[in-house]
């Protein structure tokens, strides 16, 4: 299992539209709208890097996306 954060910058006025699209994409485990360097932080769980590329592509093509940055999780500690 590969987990990654995909950090997203959105064009102004496109946030709701992007959120609607993201909520339909499989393998996205969480979506957070944030204030700061990024507009949206999503967490993704996939079986392979190829599948991660597919998810990233779907996000890129969902319209209203200015830029994405993918960070694969190497290790995780959580409650």
């Amino acid at each position, binding site marked *: 299992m590969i987990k990654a954060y995909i950090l997203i910058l959105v064009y102004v006025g496109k946030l709701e539209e992007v959120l609607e699209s993201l909520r339909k994409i499989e393998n996205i485990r969480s979506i957070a709208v944030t204030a700061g360097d990024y507009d949206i932080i999503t967490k993704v769980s996939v079986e392979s890097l190829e599948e991660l590329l597919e998810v990233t592509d779907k996000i890129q093509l969902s319209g209203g996306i200015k830029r994405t940055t993918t960070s694969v999780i190497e*290790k995780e500690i959580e409650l």
Partner: protein
Amino acid sequence: MRIRKKYLFYFLLISSSLIAATTTSIDSIISYFYISNPWVFGVSVFLVGMFITIFLSLLLSVPFRGKSIGSRIDPSFNRVRFLKREELGYHILAGMGNTVNTLGYFYIVSTFVDPSAVLPFFQVVILYLLIVESLSEKDAPTLAEVESSIIVTFGAIMASISLSGEVNVMAMLVIFLIMNPGWVLLAIYQRKLKLMRINEGHNDSINIRLWNVIFTTIFTSAIVLVYNKNYFFEAINAASMYYPWLSLTMGVTFFAYVLYIRALGLGKASISQAVKASTIIFVIPLSLLLSHYMNFSFSAGPTLFIIKIMGITLVVLGVATFALTDVRAYVFINAKGDQSIEDLMERIWHIRGVVAVSALAGKHDVLAKVRIRTLGKGYERVIRRLEGIDGIEKFSWQSVLKEWEEI
């Protein structure tokens, strides 16, 4: 389905409260019409409950469209399984907590004519949980949590207290020294079990409930056997005579607990308990209904009515305050060149309010997820602590405005 996590937390607890209110009413019917001795009732309900819980757990293990039926209630559930060695201690403590709490309840019911005059003080358990969490958990209560908990506690007492009964010192001692500590043991160790990682995934609430009922049945039977073995044999007889009613109450209770345990994995025990205090709201119409069939009066005098309305208002306000004062953030961290990332993760993990830490490949080295009650606490507890860590070159704080998580 992807929904906002805090909505899921409140949905689970309010559903659990509604089911628990129904169970309380079924218990009243059984106690009034069929099994009046509370010790006999206690053992018989657990004896039947153990079988019905095993049956329901096995039923929920049946696969349906690639997943078990139970995974629709708790996605972490796959099938019924044996205990892992690391769970055993927590299960024993949770079982002991449930036994002590239940026997305390039986004692109150059997000794005092009007338990409703003292049982509302059981709600004070929220404050016990706050104290225990402040000593044992990473995320100590904030002033907002303490205030909201007190509002809910006193609201729940006001909404459920009966003005017809006398307050008995002995009953109060049993509640404050036996029942409430028993419930604290149960809530804290069920939460620890839910947060445990089993087979690479989160522990599931269905197996936790199943094993808790098994341990509680063993402990309750043992204590009642020692106290009065005739009661134990009467309980076996009662279990065989009234098993449909006992199965009904324990079957319904099973779902109330499964939802409650799942919620314990999402939020602190004290806050879960405070939201669960909404049971007192749901139980009022059920009590009204039962008062038509059973010989007790559900007083509707103006004083009691006003007090109940005030209590319900306080509970709703307290729960809403919990829901609205939740601040989440992501902190992106870049480490200095000579810093071990694993070591840095460990140090960040020990900061209060940090609920997850991830080592990342890419632009940032570490991502910490923070959950606190106020932004001020974020500065005091998290940012000041991060600034004190040597291996951090820079970090940036991203406040979460809205969040959805897969359930």
